[in-house]
């Protein structure tokens, strides 16, 4: 077997383009996931019984089934009902919903971590429901939530590789395509893996630094 580093270098621009697409997809999925999580959490805290049960059922389904199967359902299954999504859109929705299920729990735990005493103190001061949320609960909840969300971001970035199975555009798909044309799977997958590793390490370092700084600033 003739492993060639020069070959990898020749194809590096294409792989790096894939890395860019991966980061973009991860960021978009993060936004969608946080939005879904906020909605889900809001429903779980404030809505009626059936809404709460529905949200809980959706969370349990999403967290106990593989992401790849969820993507297949969205991309291959929905067209049977007339809903045809592009691969990239299906990937974004799949990842966003997946992250949203975890985010809902994270937000709920974050809000729950604010002690009862704080809320009661707020009421004793005559604050209404929304004011309590804004002045008493929001900041400590955010502090509690940020580390968990940060960890999820790295996990989602790595999970984007799964969307290659429905042919969405990102690093794993591009790597897959390259190795099929060139018949050099080892060089290509090794290069792609190292790029993912670099991205993951960089993300973790960045998140620890910024989360640490932000959380530190709000210390009472």
């Amino acid at each position, binding site marked *: 077997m003739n492993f060639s580093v020069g070959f990898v270098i020749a194809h590096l621009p294409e792989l790096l383009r894939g890395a860019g697409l991966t980061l973009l997809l991860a960021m978009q999925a993060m936004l969608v996931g946080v939005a879904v999580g906020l909605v889900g959490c809001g429903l779980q805290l404030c809505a009626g019984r059936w809404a709460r049960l529905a949200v809980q059922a959706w969370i349990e389904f999403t967290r106990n089934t593989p992401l790849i199967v969820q993507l297949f359902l969205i991309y291959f299954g929905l067209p049977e009902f007339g809903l045809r999504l592009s691969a990239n859109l299906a990937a974004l929705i799949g990842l966003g919903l997946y992250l949203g299920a975890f985010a809902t729990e994270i937000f709920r735990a974050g809000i729950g971590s604010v002690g009862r005493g704080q809320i009661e103190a707020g009421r004793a001061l005559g604050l209404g429901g929304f004011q309590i949320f804004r002045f008493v609960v929001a900041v400590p909840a955010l502090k509690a939530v940020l580390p968990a969300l940060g960890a999820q971001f790295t996990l989602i970035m790595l999970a984007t590789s799964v969307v290659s199975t429905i042919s969405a555009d990102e690093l794993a798909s591009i790597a897959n395509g390259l190795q099929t*044309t060139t018949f050099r799977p080892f060089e290509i997958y090794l290069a792609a893996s190292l790029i993912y590793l670099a991205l993951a390490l960089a993300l973790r370092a960045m998140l620890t630094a910024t989360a640490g700084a932000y959380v530190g600033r709000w210390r009472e």
Partner: protein
Amino acid sequence: MKTSLSIGKAARAVRAAALALGLAAAAAVAGGGGGASALTIAEIQKRGTLAVGLSDVSPPYATKNEKMEHVGLEVELAEMIAKTLGVKLRIVIVTAANRVACLLTDCADILIYGLTITPERATQVWFSQPYAVNASGIIAAKGTAIASLDDLVGKRVGVIRAAFGDPVITEKAPRGATVQRFDDMSGLLQAMLAGHVDAIFENTLIPGVLNTMRRGGDFETKFVMTAGYWGIAMRQDRENLRQWINSYLFTIKTDGKLDALHRKYLNVPMPALPTF
């Protein structure tokens, strides 16, 4: 913190690790030296099995039927080869992602996976003479009006990612046409049936497949753009193996067996298959 107990334990751990590494290295040398490039027909026959890498999601070449049996043109070709050699066939299911890795690590002896012979691929593996042809063109439903490349403007064209057709359609598609890529034949055909795409760039047998998949379907080849030939892939420098396979392919081309395979699975006679 370090007690004499700890240092003793550390020393023992290091010795154990060194021993393990040494054994692994010895195993590697022993294992690597043996079957790496020396596979011959005689050895396959002595071993009693032939490992063939095949797909299971590529109708009508290699797929599963309702009895969950592995059937298709490539599957039957593999069976014929093994039978003629007098050995047992061991099917190794591979995907586009791991088939070459499987071949290069001897998890399969040969690949029969719709591999178009290209110079770039030939730097990594050896191909047999062609056993099938992949003439490709634009395929769409009868109702869709496409007579030339220009008619693709404003349409979505599906192709298998980085397969032979991908660079062709990517280059030739006019501005205003959208090219969508799929991982395998199954995904591509489903996309055509589901309407994800208006047309696909694939080989000229696919309309027959699509029309069987959708009962009463009316897909046809609008026009042909390229032709590529499929070979059986094996590791480089296995001259003995390649010589036998080429001889076998020559006999089934001339005695009608390969033609019979084409008619049975593809509903077309065996086309002209040039040799190199």
